[in-house]
């Protein structure tokens, strides 16, 4: 932290000249090309439901935030899917959370129960909508429920995404809405007791980009984090599970999305406080939400593109083993993250190939190597597997062909065991 000399020469001549005013302006965004090559991280949000913290224009959405939507059962029921939560479940991301696709019926709340098997799975049988003889009566009720759920899902989705990026294009969502609505109409609407055939086809014919439509009310693309977040809020209607006990004042307003005027109390106490001006128990006041959202580009470039599902990466031909994971590579003396993606193992010509594809819209390759018999592979820590190989694509452009330890982290230790065992087997 250096001292800085004056940036401008000041003399008896120029000292009383009017300086030209300088404006703060707003920052410029990098080009698409540059953005493509950047690993952009989504930040973990601690304040669940605090999506509309951009006050100002979005204050009106206060009531729509997921946290406060807990009272309405229908949305809760579907919030898991509506925002792609179900998709994540389909993608193999088992986070053990209630709202994963398998569990939508139960833990998703009192919502609609869909009979039929896991018909939500797009790559597999999209033979959804086996409506089981829904009689007009229940169908009508069903229809209302469906419609309510649909509308609430749309509302939430729009809220969230417009909060994230006021400039996003909402057309795709309305197209999806139309589609879903017409399918509801068909199935539950005016006396439609059968509606099975229409439905699945509609859903079955997704443009490759919207293959997720198999899941009901799935809208465009959302990121994994959204879904996780939504799931967790969906699973507990009242976010009381999310409590921040800071030791001093627990201000419940912290939990609400907007307008918490007194934030958590703060102190970095380090023993005796020599500060006469404040006590360590003092709380902060006026931590108002930021209410000028300047026209920032959404860091998530993909929101500008037509909605695409997450499950795209699942479509790996000939993969006999797939697992969601996070990949790290060793650089200098520490591990750096390469990305989050899905690991696939494929057999080609008697050899085994390991591909890890990123869970992004582009699905770029994080790793693509052949599994050699001599490739070191070990089980490390709680849920990691480490291998050493020459990474492709290279991680170090200066030494592209030297071996690098790579760490593959999976969700559970069982998964890690499984992966390790599988790799070992394939090495032979």
């Amino acid at each position, binding site marked *: 932290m250096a001292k800085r000399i004056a940036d401008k020469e000041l*003399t008896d001549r120029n*000292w009383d000249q009017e300086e030209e*005013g300088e404006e703060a302006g707003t920052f410029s*965004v990098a080009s698409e090309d540059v953005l493509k090559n950047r690993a952009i991280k989504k930040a973990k949000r601690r304040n669940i439901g605090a999506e509309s*913290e951009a006050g100002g224009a979005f204050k009106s959405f206060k009531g729509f935030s997921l946290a406060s939507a807990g009272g309405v059962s229908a949305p809760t029921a579907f919030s898991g899917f509506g925002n792609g939560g179900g998709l994540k479940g389909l993608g193999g991301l088992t986070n053990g959370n209630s709202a994963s696709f398998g569990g939508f019926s139960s833990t998703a709340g009192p919502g609609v129960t869909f009979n039929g098997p896991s018909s939500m799975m797009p790559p597999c049988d999209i033979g959804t909508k086996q409506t089981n003889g829904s009689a007009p009566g229940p169908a009508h009720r069903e229809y209302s429920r469906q419609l309510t759920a649909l509308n609430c899902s749309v509302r939430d989705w729009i809220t969230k995404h417009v909060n994230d990026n006021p400039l996003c294009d909402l057309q795709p969502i309305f197209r999806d809405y139309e589609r879903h609505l017409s399918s509801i109409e068909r199935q539950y609407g005016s006396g439609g007791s059968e509606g099975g055939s229409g439905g699945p086809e509609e859903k079955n014919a997704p443009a490759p980009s919207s293959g997720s439509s198999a899941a009901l009310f799935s809208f465009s693309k959302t990121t994994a984090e959204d879904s996780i977040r939504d799931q967790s809020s969906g699973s507990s209607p009242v976010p009381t599970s999310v409590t921040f006990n800071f030791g001093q004042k627990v201000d419940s307003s912290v939990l609400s999305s907007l307008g918490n005027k007194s934030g958590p109390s*703060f102190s970095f106490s380090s023993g005796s406080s020599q*500060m006469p001006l404040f006590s360590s128990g003092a709380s902060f006041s006026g931590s108002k939400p930021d209410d000028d959202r300047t026209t920032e580009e959404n860091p998530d470039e993909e929101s500008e593109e037509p909605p695409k599902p997450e499950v795209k990466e699942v479509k790996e031909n000939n993969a006999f083993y797939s697992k969601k994971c996070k990949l790290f590579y060793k650089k200098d003396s520490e591990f750096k*993250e390469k990305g989050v993606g899905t690991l696939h193992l494929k057999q080609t010509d008697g050899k085994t190939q390991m591909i890890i594809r990123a869970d992004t819209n582009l699905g770029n390759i994080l790793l693509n190597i052949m599994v050699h018999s001599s490739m070191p592979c070990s089980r490390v820590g709680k849920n990691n597997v480490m291998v050493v190989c*020459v990474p492709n694509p290279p991680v170090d452009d200066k030494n592209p062909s030297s071996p690098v330890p790579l760490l593959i982290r999976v969700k559970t230790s069982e998964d890690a065991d499984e992966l390790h065992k599988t790799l070992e087997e394939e090495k032979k």
Partner: protein
Amino acid sequence: MESRTVQRSGMSAGNDSGARLSQFKNKGKDASLQELRRRRAEVNVELRKAKKDDQILKRRNVQSLDDEPTSPLQEKDPNAQPSQLCSVEEIVGGMNSQNPEQQLRATQAARKLLSREKHPPIDSIIATGLIPKFVSFLALSECPPIQFEAAWALTNIASGTTDQTTAVVEGGAIPAFISLVTSPHQHISEQAIWALGNIAGDGSNNRDLVIKHGGLLPLLALLAAPDLSVFPSGYLRNLTWTLSNLCRNKNPAPPLQAVQQLLPSLVRLLHHDDRQVLADTCWAVSYLTDSSNERIEVVVHAGLVPRLVQLLGSGDLTIVTPTLRSLGNIVTGTDEQTQCVLNAGALAMFPNLLRHHKPNIQKEAAWTVSNITAGKNTQIQEVINAGLMPILVEILQQGDYKTQKEAVWAVTNYTSGGTVDQVAYLLHCNVLEPLLKLLTTKDSKVILIILDAIYNILQMAYKSGEVEKLCLMIEELGGLDKIEGLQSHDSEAVYKASLNIIDRFFSEENEDESVVPEANGDCYAFQIPEDQSTFQF
């Protein structure tokens, strides 16, 4: 780069007029001469204002618009054309004549030409090759009028461009003028001082030439007088101005020895009570302190700081500006040098300075504070005790943008050098919100500084086990969205810095706080076989 000043007040009404006037026949005209000078002074002041934009930084001794009603010399010579300026040819003729009277007349005519308001024919006069002649007249102590006229004329030539000043220097003017500083005639002495000021102010080269020729000593000797009020104010102002030009310019800075010689005089002048003298002396100090720590040391050692701090509270903008700059320069030095400024009680002035109606003063004040918060945490404590942090936060919220930038620096330096308690205090002052708001600026440098501050605060919170609260707060203030968004910034550095913060403190990783091992040695959450020699490829 030239350092140039514009005209200032003209000659003082010397009380030595007796000596000079004895040269003229019309003794009784001294009233009109004084009148002449007074008008000249007024005109000069007006010209100064008018020429403000001209960036002419040397000072020309200018004739008033209406020619003097009578010239003493004209009366003498009936053949002279009344109130009509001679042509250059005529001047050449007169100068080259062997007739002293004609020479005097011609010199005066040249002086008048060179003193006219609009487009004095400096280059024409230079082209005549007469400069050495003028210089030779400077030595004619038996004819003070011609000394005076020649000095005046040369002063005005030297007030022009570097080329024009150099022409004067090459004519051998420097030693001649230095001699004239000790002239028994005060108006001639003053004119010589003025000329030397123009020459020194031209740039480092000419300045150092003046010093090499021994220009300093006679100037400084003048200030040995026990009481400065013996000098007419104009005279003292001229002298101060010339001394300030001797302190001016960098690359190179004035010779260290010269500076050391100058300083005692500057200290003296700093205690004088004339506003202009004080202002120019402070300018001199500001030039001297705009230099290496070694130079700053010399100034501090001379004991100037307490007086500077006193002047900082003078409320007079013409004095406060250079004083603030001087003190701001001093605190770019060592911690000890900075401490001197603090010990003199400077910070007490800063609440007002940081809220000054002139944005430039605010900016300079914030810059100064930023260099103090770049110091030791005891010095940061002094800033806190002076109640300055809430004011900085105010500036961040709503200040002039240039001042805000300095305030951002002040905050970042603070977070870098402050103790945990001090940083906690800073948060208590609600710095986060306006700081995060400024992340939308287009200046990537400022963004980086802010991100630096945020990172420092987070790191400190992390070490204190309070990072969760802080992260939540940042999120609630909309800061997280902004930081996340900055990953799309044009600047690679901004991208990296924002990514780093997200990675370290807002990582999606559920298990460890930060997946990527920190640099604190306690890196590996997992075992990694160290021997890579077994890997064969």
